């Protein structure tokens, strides 16, 4: 259970890191928090010839809340922001509570102290909570090489299980999570076999209400039910319903019918579909209640 040898590089700046990645060629891996890569190396499932350690790139250790190009709000997370940094960031919690709601379920606090949010997106585990959060919010990842830079939307970023579209030699520098517009509440629910384990099924929900408290939009995203995060709208079932009267159980059933989870050692596909239905109803109900409360505080504040 010892990792194989590799040639170690520890650049001090982003430019140096991009230079090293360009020099060493395709058999190199970026080393961020190491919480996925090191176990894989310990188990000899990965044996890169070069590791480019990005832990000194202090410029990428940030969580920034700001205004997006389209005038909306967004949370930008640098490649060296640990899960724990994102989870604890007060401004990010206030504007985009879904981040912390989902991060609570990412492994254990000890692993969140080292693992990076951007690293978990690049790793693209089909059970990685942040993949579905990025997809649900319609976020993006910025990828850079020494000579080029591209911004890839979540819908194209996740290609398959443990496969994102980041190519060898590219450094993911940041991920951007847009803050949903309007009176939107969010929620994350999942079931894992043990506390902190990867989910058997997990779901994130966003519910938006209009001025009079009717459902204007309801979307959900799933982990562990397919090769990449799955995003669905359940608006057809609940749109226009007053928030108290919306049939979230029917919405859960509607969503579950549209998923095709596979069986594996942890659960049968049918059980996963059942879980998806139940968890979807719970997550939507909680998100809608949060949206309703948001409305009250906004109204009270304006009085």
């Amino acid at each position, binding site marked *: 259970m*010892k990792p194989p*040898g590799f040639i*170690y590089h520890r650049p001090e700046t982003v430019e140096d890191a991009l230079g090293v990645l360009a020099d060493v060629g395709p058999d190199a891996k970026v080393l961020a928090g*190491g919480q996925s890569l*090191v176990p894989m190396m310990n188990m000899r499932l990965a044996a890169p010839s070069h590791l480019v350690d990005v832990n000194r790139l202090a410029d990428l250790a940030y969580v920034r809340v700001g205004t997006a190009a389209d005038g909306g709000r967004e949370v930008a997370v640098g490649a060296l922001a640990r899960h724990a940094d994102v989870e604890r960031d007060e401004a990010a919690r206030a504007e985009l509570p879904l981040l912390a709601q989902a991060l609570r379920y990412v492994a254990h606090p000890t692993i969140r102290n*080292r693992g990076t949010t951007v690293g978990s997106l690049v790793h693209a585990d089909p059970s990685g909570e942040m993949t579905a959060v990025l997809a649900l919010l319609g976020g993006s990842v910025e990828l850079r090489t020494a000579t080029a830079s591209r911004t890839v939307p979540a819908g194209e970023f996740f290609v398959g299980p443990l496969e994102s579209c980041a190519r060898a030699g590219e450094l993911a520098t940041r991920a951007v999570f847009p803050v949903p517009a309007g009176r939107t509440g969010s929620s994350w629910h999942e079931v894992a076999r043990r506390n902190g384990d990867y989910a058997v099924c997990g779901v994130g929900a966003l519910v938006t209400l209009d001025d009079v408290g009717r459902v204007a939009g309801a979307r959900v995203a799933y982990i562990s039910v397919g090769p990449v995060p799955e995003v669905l709208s359940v608006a057809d079932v609940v749109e226009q319903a007053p928030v108290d009267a919306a049939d979230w159980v029917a919405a859960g059933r509607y969503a579950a019918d549209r998923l095709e989870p596979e069986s594996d050692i942890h659960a049968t596909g049918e059980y996963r579909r059942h879980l998806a239905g139940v968890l979807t109803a719970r997550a939507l109900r909680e998100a809608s209640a949060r949206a309703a409360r948001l409305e009250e505080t906004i109204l009270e504040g304006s009085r």
Partner: protein
Amino acid sequence: MTDTDAAERNHPVTMLVNGVHRSAEIPARRLLSDFLRHDLGLTGTHVGCEHGVCGACTVLVDGRPIRSCLQFAVTLDGAQVTTIEGCTRADGELGSVQQAFQDCHGLQCGFCTPGFVTTITAFLDENPDPTEDEAREAIAGNLCRCTGYQNIVASVLRAAELANGSAGQEST
């Protein structure tokens, strides 16, 4: 130089371990857990699973608990590390978390204990007066094959009591 030679090249690494500067020349693939145990002789840090699931190898880096089996020591060149050996009081007596484990029978074979003690030490720094639920959540990432966890939860609460009590005594 061939790639294999280059991969086994030694790197100088220095850390402040339990308040003492320690250095060694090590290959990049040396895990922090092995660096502590083999290169520095600090065998209190235990290695159970070597892939991040058991928590036995937990140490504090710059005050935060991490899995030492999932970090290369070179990455942490210059860091400040606290191991179980650094969880005693300055006079060499048991620290409050260690004392609490003794008081509450929080260990049996003791294999998992170093990881629990470091994890709980960092947790109580942040949350000096936890509820029982918070105490349980705090240790959820550490596995113990012996105790059934009840006495470990009790130890967390007892350690908080001891730490708060001694702070109280000092101020009187």
